[in-house]
């Protein structure tokens, strides 16, 4: 029997009531989403963390010793039982060169705490580095990373190199946080990153840390209690194993140090000795050199003397020779003169003889010439006479010719003139009148003949003139000229003849005188020849004497030359010897000088070195004396330096767990309540249908099935959506909230069957069970009863009516509302609880957000006013103190206050973590409130420092459950347990603080008060400046460390951010819940009372009156629900404040106005919107249909 129609009816019921179906589904979706989401997000986070830790084989315990781990330490650790592997490594904090960014350089591990390589690879060469993946944006693979290592107090460095090539980007399994990695001694005091290099890049005798893994911890959940318990056991074992090590190590270190000091002292002494030896040697060398120089000078002198003497002798010889040579030369000259004279005499004689011969020849010639000249003169006299005759003849010819010509010419002229006169006569006659024609013709013919005669005569004259007269005249002129020339020539010849005549006469007289002179000359020549012969004889005698002198001179000259040569040779050899000696000396001098220079150059450095060595030795001796017992600390993953991320991550996951225990239960309770009511109403509505089915013979279970199937379908649909979203959406939202602060891989989404089953069970419980129960209750009646309408809920007086004064003052409509409100008690409670639930969740959400939101502002704006604590090293030199004071008084710093600063610890909290407490003891209490304002949170009254007891921060007091007046114990920096009475509990939100007066400190710690740090307030308080100033302090050797406020803020920030986002999700969920609840309740209210509403509509109520008739109740109940919600929300908030905050954080428990305002506003808006929806629905309701039907 398939009962198709029955199933059809069921599906139709769903289709017809989509609003109800969806609201049940929605309620279940919201409930299961919150439940599943919050329940799985924490485990998912931890699973992700555990997987990551397992993959990278992160150490369970990390042991760090103050002075490193030597072989005896290693032996002790090796002996610890249960270890699966122990690995040692190095680390060193450095800064990136030129920046304040600090990096922790780890040696590359082989198996424990390996790295997740994000890009590139791990280093394989000593010059390679794998850098924190957070720096991937700033550096590329292949870039060079230069770091600066600060030397430690003894001046030692542990890095062999400071330049590395980046070959990879990695994430650490130990340092999970990217915002807070803990403290460092480099940079600003806050660690900014890490990097991995090969162990061989470290130069250290001891390892710096030991990483240990334990066999029995490998397979258990690292966040579970089993792990924590076992780990504690192992840590205790390690502590026990290392118990004697501090003393041994100190003793050993001291011995070592003393040996080193002694050997260093010896080395220094040796160096000093060497220095003085060298100096002595140099001095001796100087002396030798000086002696050599003296000897050389003496030798030089002797040589010079010898040479001078020899030279003088030579010079004398030379002088004598010179005199001789002069004499010889004079003799020679005389000889030459004599010779010349002789030759001149002979020559003169010869000349005179020649002259005589010539004069005789001349005389003969002159005789001849005289004769010739006389002949010539006679000829010339004849020529002259002839010439004169010719000239006279020519003259006569010419004169006759001229006369002829002139006569002819005159004849012509006369003829012409006669002819012309005849012509003129004829013309004159012609011109006379009265002439007869014959006369005239006669006259004319006469004239014509005369004129022709004239013309012929003229022509003949012209021919005469040109042909005869003119050439004749020219010939005459030329002849005249020639004649003149011949005359002058003749005159010239006459003159020459006269001169020659005169000369001949002179020469004829001079000839006899010449004959006389020639006779005289002959006599003189004879005389001269005789004198010459005598002179020749004398000359030859003198020549012989001279030649003899010359010979002697030449011999002596040769002798002198030899002497000179000998001297030169001797001088040369002497000088050569001297030069050699000089050279030797010079080279020796140079050697000496070089030695001296070297010495001069090296000696100061060497002396300085020796001096600094001595200073160092003194310091070292002091240090050895001051060497404190080293502490060996075994850190868990949560506790190790840089492990704050691990702790914070765990905290975030635990916060979600804590929320998971409250929110979903509350949500489910409310959702279930509403679902229950809704299903009940559904059964009521289907009453007559059910009766009909029963009447038709269907079994009660068939009828019930409709409701259970409906409930099942709606709740399962919602639950599946919620489970799916809870498994994915919420963990992803949580991941998104914290991912910025961590380097962990993306959250792993796992399926959690138990939570899913729980969600399904709860859904069945809140949707199917009430359906079944309601249906069963209804069906208990027989079918006939079922077919009748259910009697309406009877009216009754309500309690309020008994308070007559109040009741009478209510308007009618308000009375109606009041009565109606109490008439449907189930719905009233449901509305109140539903709204209250939503409001409570909203209030909690907003309160948590408000309380964490203002936390750092209150703490660092109202309580802590200093910007940083600067801790100083002990045993500072005066130079270091001065340097520190200079920085502390620099312009950037507003004020400082000297304090004693110490990091205390106390084991407290749910994880039994060691809580770090910052102890601040001001030197004087004056103006201390300008640095730290200790005050009671509730009353805001200041808490002054007492002369005994300590003021502790509120969270610490809560954690250890201490009140004012109680005594608490804690461990000081040297692990010594101390006790102190609490004199006050101050408002403080982040970190644990203990603040005492100087006297109280001395009492509690049984020690003298010393300052070791400064509270610093900066003028410019920006984060950047705080970091810059922190870096400046860190750079000083006097500074041990800097604690910045941002360290605390950053640490909390991740948690706050994650919590904030989760709260936002919860607020949204609570808001949705509010919407669904109010929608559902309003719907039920309307449908249940549709008849009543139709009635008043028919009665003429306006639309808004109709709406308010029913909605006034909703508003009232919502109002009550909000108030109740405030109460519940406060309780929830307190619960969250108790379980959620991490150990070192206190959420501000004060509730703020806005936390109340927002939920109220939100619900008010939802109510108003739904009111509008209801109003629309009622407007369109068919009042007639409702009134007609019988139910």
């Amino acid at each position: 029997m398939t009962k198709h129609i029955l199933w059809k009816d069921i599906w139709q019921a769903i289709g017809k009531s989509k609003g109800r179906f969806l609201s049940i589904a929605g309620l279940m979706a919201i409930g299961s989403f919150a439940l599943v989401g919050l329940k799985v997000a924490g485990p998912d986070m931890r699973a992700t963390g555990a997987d990551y830790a397992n993959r990278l084989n992160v150490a369970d315990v990390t042991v760090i010793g103050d002075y490193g781990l030597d072989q005896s330490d290693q032996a002790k650790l090796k002996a610890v039982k249960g270890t699966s592997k122990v690995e040692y490594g190095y680390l060193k904090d450095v800064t990136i060169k030129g920046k304040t960014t600090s990096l922790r350089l780890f040696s590359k591990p082989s198996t424990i705490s390996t790295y997740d390589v994000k890009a590139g690879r791990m280093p394989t060469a000593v010059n390679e580095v794998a850098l924190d993946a957070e720096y991937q944006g700033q550096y590329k693979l292949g870039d060079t990373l230069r770091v600066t290592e600060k030397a430690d107090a003894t001046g030692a460095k542990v890095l062999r190199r400071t330049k590395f090539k980046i070959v990879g980007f990695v994430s650490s399994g130990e340092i999970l946080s990217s915002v807070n990695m803990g403290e460092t001694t480099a940079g600003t005091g806050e660690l900014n990153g890490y990097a991995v290099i090969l162990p061989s890049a470290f130069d250290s005798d001891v390892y710096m840390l030991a990483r240990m893994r334990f066999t029995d911890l490998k397979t258990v959940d690292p966040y579970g209690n089993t792990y924590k318990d076992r780990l504690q056991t192992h840590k205790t074992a390690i502590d026990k194993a290392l118990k004697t090590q501090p003393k041994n190590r100190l003793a050993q270190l001291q011995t070592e140090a003393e040996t080193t000091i002694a050997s260093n002292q010896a080395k220094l002494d040796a160096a000093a000795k060497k220095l003085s030896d060298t100096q002595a040697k140099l001095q001796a060398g100087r002396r030798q050199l000086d002696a050599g120089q003296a000897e050389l000078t003496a030798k030089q002198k002797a040589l010079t003397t010898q040479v001078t003497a020899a030279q003088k002798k030579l010079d004398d010889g030379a002088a004598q020779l010179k005199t001789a040579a002069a004499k010889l030369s004079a003799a020679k000259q005389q000889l030459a003169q004599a010779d010349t004279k002789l030759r001149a005499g002979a020559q003169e004689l010869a000349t005179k003889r020649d002259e005589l011969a010539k004069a005789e020849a001349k005389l003969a010639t002159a005789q001849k010439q005289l004769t010739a000249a006389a002949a010539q003169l006679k000829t010339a006299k004849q020529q002259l006479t002839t010439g004169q005759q010719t000239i006279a003849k020519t003259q006569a010819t010419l004169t006759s010719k001229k006369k002829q010509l002139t006569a002819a010419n005159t004849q012509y002229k006369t003829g012409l003139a006669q002819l012309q006169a005849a012509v003129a006569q004829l013309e004159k006659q012609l011109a006379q009148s009265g002439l007869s024609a014959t006369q005239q013709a006669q006259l004319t013919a006469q004239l014509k003949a005369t004129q022709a005669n004239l013309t012929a005569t003229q022509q003949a004259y012209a021919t005469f003139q040109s042909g005869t007269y003119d050439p004749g005249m020219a010939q005459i002129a030329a002849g005249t000229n020639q004649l003149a020339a011949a005359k002058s020539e003749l005159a010239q010849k006459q003159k020459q003849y006269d001169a020659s005549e005169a000369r001949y006469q002179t020469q004829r007289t001079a000839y006899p005188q010449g004959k006389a002179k020639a006779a005289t000359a002959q006599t003189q020549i004879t005389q001269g020849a005789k004198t010459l012969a005598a002179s020749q004889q004398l000359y030859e005698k003198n020549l012989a004497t001279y030649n003899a002198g010359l010979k002697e001179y030449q011999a002596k000259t040769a002798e002198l030359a030899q002497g000179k040569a000998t001297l030169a040779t001797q001088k040369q050899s002497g000088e050569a010897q001297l030069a050699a000696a000089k050279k030797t000396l010079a080279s020796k001098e140079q050697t000496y000088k070089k030695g001296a220079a070297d010495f001069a150059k090296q000696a100061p450095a060497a002396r300085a070195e020796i001096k600094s060595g001595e200073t160092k030795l003194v310091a070292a001796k002091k240090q050895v004396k001051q060497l404190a017992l080293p502490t060996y600390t075994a850190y868990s993953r949560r506790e190790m330096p840089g492990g704050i991320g691990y702790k914070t991550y765990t905290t975030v996951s635990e916060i979600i767990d804590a929320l998971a225990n409250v929110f979903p239960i509350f949500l489910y309770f409310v959702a279930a309540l509403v679902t229950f009511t809704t299903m009940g109403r559904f059964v009521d509505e289907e009453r007559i249908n059910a009766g009909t089915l029963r009447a038709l013979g269907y079994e009660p279970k068939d009828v019930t099935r409709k409701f259970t199937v409906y409930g099942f379908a709606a709740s399962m649909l919602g639950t599946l959506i919620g489970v799916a979203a809870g498994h994915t959406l919420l963990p992803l939202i949580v991941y998104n909230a914290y991912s910025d602060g961590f380097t962990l891989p993306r959250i792993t989404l796992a399926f959690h069957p138990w939570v899913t089953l729980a969600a399904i069970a709860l859904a069945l419980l809140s949707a199917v069970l009430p359906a079944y129960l309601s249906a069963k209750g209804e069906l208990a009646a027989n079918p006939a009863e079922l077919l009748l309408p259910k009697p309406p809920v009877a009216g009754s007086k309500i309690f309020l009516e008994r308070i007559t004064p109040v009741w009478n003052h209510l308007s009618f409509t308000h009375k109606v509302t009041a009565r109606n409100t109490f008439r449907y008690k189930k719905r009233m409670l449901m509305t109140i609880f539903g709204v209250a639930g939503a409001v409570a969740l909203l209030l909690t959400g907003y309160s948590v957000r408000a309380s964490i939101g203002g936390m750092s502002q209150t703490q660092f704006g109202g309580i802590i006013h200093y910007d940083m604590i600067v801790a100083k090293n002990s045993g500072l030199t005066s130079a270091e103190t001065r340097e520190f004071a200079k920085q502390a008084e620099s312009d950037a710093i507003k004020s400082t206050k000297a304090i004693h600063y110490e990091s205390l610890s106390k084991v407290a909290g749910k994880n039994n973590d060691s809580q770090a407490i910052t102890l601040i003891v001001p030197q004087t209490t004056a103006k201390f409130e300008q640095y730290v304002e200790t005050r009671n949170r509730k009353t805001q009254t200041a808490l002054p420092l007492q002369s005994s007891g300590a003021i502790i921060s509120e969270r610490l007091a809560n954690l250890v459950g201490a009140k004012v007046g109680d005594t608490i114990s804690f461990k000081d920096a040297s692990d010594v347990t101390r006790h102190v009475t609490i004199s006050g509990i101050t408002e403080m939100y982040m970190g644990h603080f203990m603040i005492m007066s100087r006297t109280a400190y001395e009492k509690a710690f049984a020690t003298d008060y010393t300052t070791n740090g400064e509270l610093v307030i900066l003028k410019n308080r920006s984060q950047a400046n705080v970091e810059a100033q922190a870096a400046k302090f860190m750079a000083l050797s006097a500074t041990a460390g800097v604690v910045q406020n941002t360290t605390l803020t950053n640490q909390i920030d991740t948690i706050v951010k994650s919590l904030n986002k989760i709260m936002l999700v919860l607020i949204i969920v609570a808001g949705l819940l509010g919407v669904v609840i109010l929608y559902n309740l309003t719907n039920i209210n309307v449908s249940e009372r549709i008849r009543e509403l139709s009635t008043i509509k028919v009665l003429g109520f306006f639309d808004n009156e109709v709406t308010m008739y029913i909605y006034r109740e909703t508003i009232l109940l919502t109002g009550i629900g909000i108030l109740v919600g405030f109460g519940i929300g406060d309780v929830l908030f307190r619960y969250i404040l108790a379980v959620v905050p991490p150990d070192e954080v206190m959420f501000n428990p004060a509730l703020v106005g806005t936390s109340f305002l927002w939920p109220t506003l939100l619900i008010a808006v939802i109510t108003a919107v739904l009111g509008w929806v209801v109003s629309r629905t009622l407007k369109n309701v068919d009042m007639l249909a409702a009134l007609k039907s019988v139910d």
Partner: protein
Amino acid sequence: MSYIDVKHSTKRYQMGETEILANNDVSFQIEKGELAIILGASGAGKSTILNILGGMDTNSSGDVIIDGQNISHFSSRELTAYRRTDIGFVFQFYNLVPNLTAKENVELASEIVEGAQDPTQTLIDVGLAKRIDNFPAQLSGGEQQRVAIARAVAKNPKILLCDEPTGALDYETGKQVLQIIQDMARKHGSTVIVVTHNAAIAPIGDRVIHMRDAKVSQITQNTHPAAIENIEW
């Protein structure tokens, strides 16, 4: 001109694909102070007329003039105001608000109009002096219907509309209720319209409008309406 004048009023319903004519060209007049009976079998369209007259529904065509006002063109709000001031309803199933006492149910109506009667006096008038503070569940059917009548008349409506007022009542109680309704016309001068399928009631009216198949089949006027005690069914 008559007090109520319905002219050619037609009402159509669209039921899926088919059109239903609930009133087909209905016309009649009722004078002020008359007790009119609209008589007809189930589905004859009498309730539709009543709803249109009461301002709970509007006709598709034709005019409905009440005291000179044509309500067939009224807006939803005007109709509500019309119901509020001019109309009193009595239903077959009383439709009292169960959570309110008898007096409060009357007040529910009297609160919203000016010049309403005193609710208590109204209840006394309908003979429920002793039941004033009782809840509907504590009242018999006749008493509940009397509360309903009290609620309808308390606001001094121009017209009192009664839809099968005796339909859920036994004979005696029905007669009592009818008596009260008749008295409203006779003694208080109200214009009363009673819709019924019970022909036995017809003689008590001044005017009887017979409905058949969505039309007015006949209008009869009784110059001497019968007394309640004289009718039987």
